């Protein structure tokens, strides 16, 4: 009788230890799930940040593209695009070598210049959308458009659409 009691006491002690361990592992699992969820959220946020940075980088690159900028005696005019260079660029946008060169710089994006004042044409100088995309970030930057033959400046907008 006494032996049976002692054996049950030991079993109870064993059960208690197992229960503590069980709770400990449950807490650990909850912690791990919580941690990994937070980690996943921060990775998603970092992805968005990277995407935003990419959009900024592309906008900067196009703003400083020598093939599109206005120059006089090789001196670049800030935030100004040469209208004739844009027309030339738009007409050559399917040239394989030009496509290859700009693909490295602009990736999956679309670059359009709109003449706002006086109202005029739109020039799509680069377009490379992915077959399927979830999201597109559009950045609009006001610019000047210089018409070298008329020696006139127009008000325009550079529209940068980056896909992801």
């Amino acid at each position, binding site marked *: 009788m006494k032996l049976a009691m002692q054996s049950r006491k030991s079993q109870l002690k064993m059960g208690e230890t197992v229960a*503590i361990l069980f709770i400990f592992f449950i*807490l650990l699992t909850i*912690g791990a799930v*919580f941690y990994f969820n937070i980690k996943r*959220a*921060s990775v998603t946020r970092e992805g968005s940040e990277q995407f935003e*940075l990419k959009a900024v980088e592309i906008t900067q690159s196009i703003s400083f593209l020598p093939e599109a900028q206005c120059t006089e005696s090789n001196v670049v005019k800030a935030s100004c695009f040469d209208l004739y260079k844009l027309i030339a660029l738009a007409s050559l946008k399917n040239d394989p070598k030009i496509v290859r060169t700009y693909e490295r710089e602009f990736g999956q994006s679309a670059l359009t210049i709109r003449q706002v004042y006086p109202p005029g044409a739109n020039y799509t100088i680069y377009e490379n959308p992915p077959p399927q995309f979830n999201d597109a970030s559009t950045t*609009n930057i006001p610019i*000047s458009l210089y018409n070298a033959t008329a020696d006139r400046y127009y008000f325009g907008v550079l529209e940068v659409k980056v896909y992801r």
Partner: protein
Amino acid sequence: MELMGLTIIVILIILGILFAIKFVILKKPPETKASFTRSQMTSNLGMAILQSTSKNCKGTDVTELMTDCAQWIETGGLISCEDGRNSCRYVNETVAWILNSTLVQWKVKYYVSAGTSKNPKDPKVFEFSNLKCKDNQPGNSELFFLPTDRGVMTVKIFICS
């Protein structure tokens, strides 16, 4: 004794969760693109407007029309354009058209003004605002200075954040 251990564990877990909420979940996302766009918009908008050549006003640019308007603001400006409008009206309508075709459509909060006097009651060459944006609110601003016979004209471009 066991209860105390459990309490300590619970306290530690709560602390951990609070720490994670404070530094990970409530962390404000960086405004890289928004701040870049705002700064580009303020500087480029002013430059592009001032540089623009008028559509039908004797080949003058917006800067010339603004200068003329500032110098002869009481009479509405001396330059008379092809369509009969004088410089003040022409420049006002042109800038309004540009802003309506761009910043208003993009739902950007802005405040744009140009004038020679520091007194807010004095007439301005132009003053436009969108979505109740005022230049004392947080945002990005860019000033352009144009010399006129009435002193320096200040063109203010302000984009509210």
